[in-house]
């Protein structure tokens, strides 16, 4: 068992005939993923990189048994693409598309909950379990199978850190890039239990950013419910106070959302905090050594 994707994962790519859809179909296949179908309305019957294209997700599911969708369609059409995936009964949808209005995401998130469909993203790198499957866009080169789980709100920073873990000779169980948008389908708190009960994960790396309160909430969860060691890094400690949203935003966050607040919450929860991205792999190796695991 792994977190969310495994060797039974069968990916359908929505928007496969677009440039990014095609590029990442190739990359997912090179990763060893079963990419079984693509969907682009009006292009049913064609093929992209050997993957059959269908007019609808329902048809793709019926004919190929697809059980994970990766959405690359442009933002104005992303909500509809998600509805289609959820209505076709797909339980996990990774939305790579960026610039989706948060009002749309609110609808998608709650609709997904009613339909039993989990969203990763939007505006996210997706999920990868080395040796098993990838549903998203994280570069293949950074991975190597292992027992370190990674969850992150960032994109390229995740690649940087995952790559660092590889470079010290360790590997990853599953890596999830949650996306950094105001409303995301799966938060740290939503993802933590998945890693906690994953027998293939010994330690979790949590990569956060300033802004919002997701890391504080993660710390709260870790403190009370999470049983594995955590190494955390928060980007933005040197950044000047942001100017987003003005008053009401400040009221909602009230004294949370700064790097200091996140770091102290995580430390209080027992996480090992890395000051810089290149410190993460060393700390991971240390904690694993303490565990007597590898």
């Amino acid at each position, binding site marked *: 068992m792994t977190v969310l994707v495994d060797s039974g994962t069968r990916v359908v790519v929505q928007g496969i005939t677009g440039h990014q859809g095609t590029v990442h179909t190739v990359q997912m296949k090179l990763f060893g993923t079963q990419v079984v179908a693509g969907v682009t309305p009006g292009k049913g019957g064609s093929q992209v990189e050997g993957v059959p294209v269908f007019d609808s997700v329902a048809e793709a599911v019926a004919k190929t048994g697809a059980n994970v969708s990766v959405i690359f369609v442009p933002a104005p059409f992303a909500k509809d693409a998600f509805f289609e995936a959820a209505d076709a009964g797909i339980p996990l949808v990774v939305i790579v598309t960026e610039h989706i209005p948060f009002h749309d995401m609110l609808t998608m998130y709650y609709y997904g909950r009613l339909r039993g469909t989990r969203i990763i993203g939007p505006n996210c790198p997706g999920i990868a379990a080395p040796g098993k499957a990838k549903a998203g866009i994280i570069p293949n080169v950074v991975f190597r199978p292992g027992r370190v789980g990674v969850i992150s709100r960032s994109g390229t920073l995740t690649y940087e850190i995952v790559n660092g873990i590889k470079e010290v000779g360790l590997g990853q169980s599953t890596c999830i890039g949650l996306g950094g948008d105001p409303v995301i389908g799966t938060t740290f708190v939503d993802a933590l239990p998945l890693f906690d009960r994953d027998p293939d994960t010994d330690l979790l790396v949590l990569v956060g950013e300033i802004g919002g*309160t997701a890391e504080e909430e993660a710390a709260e969860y870790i403190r009370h419910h999470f049983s594995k060691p955590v190494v955390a890094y928060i980007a933005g400690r040197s950044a000047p106070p942001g100017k987003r949203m003005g008053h009401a935003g400040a009221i909602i966050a009230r004294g949370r959302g700064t790097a200091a607040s996140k770091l102290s919450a995580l430390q209080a929860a027992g996480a090992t905090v890395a000051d810089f991205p290149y410190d993460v792999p060393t700390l991971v190796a240390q904690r694993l050594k303490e565990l007597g695991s590898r």
Partner: protein
Amino acid sequence: MVKLAEWRGKEIFRRYGIPVPKGRVVRSAAEADELLRSGALSLPLVVKAQVLAGGRGKGGAVKFASTPEELRAVVSGMLGMRFKDETVKELLLEPKVAVGRELYLSIALDRSAREPLLIASAQGGVDIESMADDQLLRIEVHPFAGLASYEKRQVATSFGLEPPASKELGNVLEAVWKAFQLEDAELVEINPLAVVDGHLLALDAKVVIEDDAGFRHPEYAEILDDRTPLEEIAREKEIAFVQLDGDIGVIANGAGLTMATLDVLAQFGGRPGVFLDLGGTDDPNKVTEAFLLMAKAHPSVVFLNIFGGVTRCDTVAKGLVAAMKLVPEEDRFPLVARIRGNNEDLGRQILQAAGITALSDLKASAQAVVAAERPRVAGKAPT
């Protein structure tokens, strides 16, 4: 994020049925004169500079006029004045009213709850951040249920209004919610929502529209927001660009990596001055544009830190090489390039051919950048 000027916010309010004063926008003293002469407005008036920053009252950006002479003087004095980095180009003229109570109402997104949050306070008119928590009523509004009647009753109870204002409140609340949802707003704020002659009246309007919803709202496309001129150019090119106080220019891809880069530079004593995020692109021209934009900011040294994903290392290398040929002599800057990830080797070769050595270790690269900043060498990248 598109922050709307007060008068645009009030136009939206009017459209959704929130009562606002009968005001007019002027861009010259002559226009103000004419409105007075034609009877469209009558004295006394309040004159409000249409700038986006707060603190207008204390900052002299809101004034009163009781005579035509006073009005002319106030309007002439205010137009063209600088207010916190903005130049005043428009004024809103409204009838002066006798304000009774001042209330506060807003809706914004609560990211953690994944629900819009309505905030109400019976003590409006002041800075909401200065209010005590127990003066604020917070109501999560579920997007599928809307603002329920019982929630409106909660607000009514906390306000304790008399009729007719108490009867008008339900409509105002519904309108605030509808405007938030249908205009794809990030924030709808009425502060103060005043009681004037027993009736509710929105004396200010702060409406912030979400950029990403632009495809549904072509009407906001042309409204300028609060970016600096360089930031504005960047927006047109779809490059995230933020100006800070230091003198190191940082070009990276992805917000998280960019922030981490700033953190690392700070560790070694570097002072970042321009923060430029390429985002995900596979167009070398966009990379070239980014470098040309960076050159205009005259950094003392530029740190290119790329982890290739959607944005591949070879794309960045091509864009950089092209830029180096286009940057005018006087705008040249020293460069430290660090590339990793997708097509790293190819990118390294392209840079090498142009005489640029790309590093791979982040820590060592950052140290090189700070070293290059210190001596303030003018010239090419350390090769």
